[in-house]
């Protein structure tokens, strides 16, 4: 299988008036094409910093990030993002349809094609007919579905998610997790997710990258050898699921 993303010896330092903060130290890992990879670690370990580097919002002080063998210097074209704070990443002054249409302006699409993409993406996330609604007229879970639809509409090869389900209630979270699995199944998108929820990471991922320490290093890359399709009822009761979550939890907490 081809490698979609390669993180090679990435280090990140911030210069502050009080001195230099060393956030990431020689972080390396590879993401296979079509895989779902979660990045976990204790609070403040530098997960979000890593995410900013992966999306091209910031440049590492050392090392490089390659997307399909090409070093990234700004946000790659075929990348989509879903962020935790949907109220801040959707535009309240645009309808759902226009929110989704905005990133599509960078692609050369006819009006009909654009319309078709929007309809299909909304159908994929179970929000048929919500085109003319405004984000603030929808519940939190529905807004996050709009964010996911916006991401899908650009037909990305890479999807990056930052704590995507942290701001919705538990029931909605399970629904959205299964939605993300379905999306991965339907489109084979390589997905990277930062999360603090270890159960969620085990449930969704092919591999889990555990960051640990100050500055953060890759503590381990855990292969989640639970077969797909997964289900909330069965997978979470699986003995292997329990083993893996205990293992990852131990590492995140620095107990292993």
């Amino acid at each position, binding site marked *: 299988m081809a490698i979609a993303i390669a993180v090679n010896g990435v280090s990140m330092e911030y210069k502050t008036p009080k001195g230099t903060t060393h956030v990431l130290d020689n972080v390396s890992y590879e993401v296979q094409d079509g895989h779902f990879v979660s990045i976990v670690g204790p609070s403040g370990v530098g997960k979000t910093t890593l995410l900013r580097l992966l999306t091209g919002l910031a440049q590492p002080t050392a090392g490089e990030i390659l997307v399909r063998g090409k070093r990234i210097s700004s946000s790659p074209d075929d990348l989509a993002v879903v962020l935790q704070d949907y109220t801040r990443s959707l535009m309240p*002054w*645009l309808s759902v349809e226009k929110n989704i249409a905005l*990133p599509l302006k960078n692609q050369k699409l006819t009006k009909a094609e654009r319309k078709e993409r929007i309809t299909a993406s909304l159908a994929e996330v179970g929000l048929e007919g919500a085109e003319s609604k405004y984000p603030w007229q929808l519940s939190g879970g529905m807004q996050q579905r709009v964010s996911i639809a916006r991401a899908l509409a650009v037909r990305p090869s890479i999807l990056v998610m930052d704590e995507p389900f942290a701001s919705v209630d538990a029931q909605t979270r399970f629904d959205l997790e299964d939605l993300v699995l379905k999306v991965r199944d339907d489109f084979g998108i390589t997905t990277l997710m930062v999360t603090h929820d270890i159960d969620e990471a085990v449930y969704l991922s092919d591999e889990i990258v555990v960051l640990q320490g100050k500055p953060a290093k890759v503590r381990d890359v855990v292969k989640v050898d639970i077969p797909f399709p997964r289900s909330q009822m069965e997978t979470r009761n699986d003995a292997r699921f329990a083993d893996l979550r205990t293992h990852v939890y131990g590492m995140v907490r620095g107990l292993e």
Partner: protein
Amino acid sequence: MSGKPLRIPAGLVSAVVALLIWQIATTWGPLAGTSVPTATSTLAELWNMLFMSETWDSIWQTIQMALYGFLIAVAIAIPVGILIGLSRFAFISTKFTFDFFKVIPPIVIIPITILVFGPTLQMGVFLVVFAIVFALAVQTAYGVRDADPVLIETMRCYGMGRAKQVLFARLPAASPFIAIGIRISVSAAMIVAVVAGLVGGAPGLGHDLLLAQTNGQNTVTFAIVLILGILGLAVSRLVVFLQRRLIFWTAS
């Protein structure tokens, strides 16, 4: 919403009460026999004036000064405010100068404007621009800077450049700030347009006010004041109405 049907009658009641107090004070009260005219004679004068084309000319001249000045100020302040707001350096370095000009009352530069423009419509327009352009630019710059960094980063992730960020994120995010600036500016524009006539001799209601005052036409003076009040009220109502329509997302 339950208070809505009451609003207009309540406003009317207070207006009627105010007129009654005025009438009583000038008929039997402490203002009886002074140069302050009664409410009824003022209203009668106002009624007469509504049939004179000169009144409407004056109203139009005042509105013109306020409106042109306002439009020119908006055309300058919003682009300038956006540019300033986009750069931290520009924002910090211009803040001092703009805040300085913001607090200069336009009345102090009237002597200079009379020298340059004479007592003309242009002078009034210039004063209006001067009175509001700095505050509006600062307000716009604040709004542009207030755009949510999460939103801007989302746009960057999707490969949207500066121009799109301004058009689809920074400008809409700034619009509640700009709206506040515009609400204040519109009132200021009306006031300054009158002052330009009253102090600087520019045409319009301000100038009429000055003439009526110096000629001792007290009922005319007060009738003009009433016109100004009604005009100001109408303009600010219009702005609030437009604001609610255009910036609908902040309501809920």
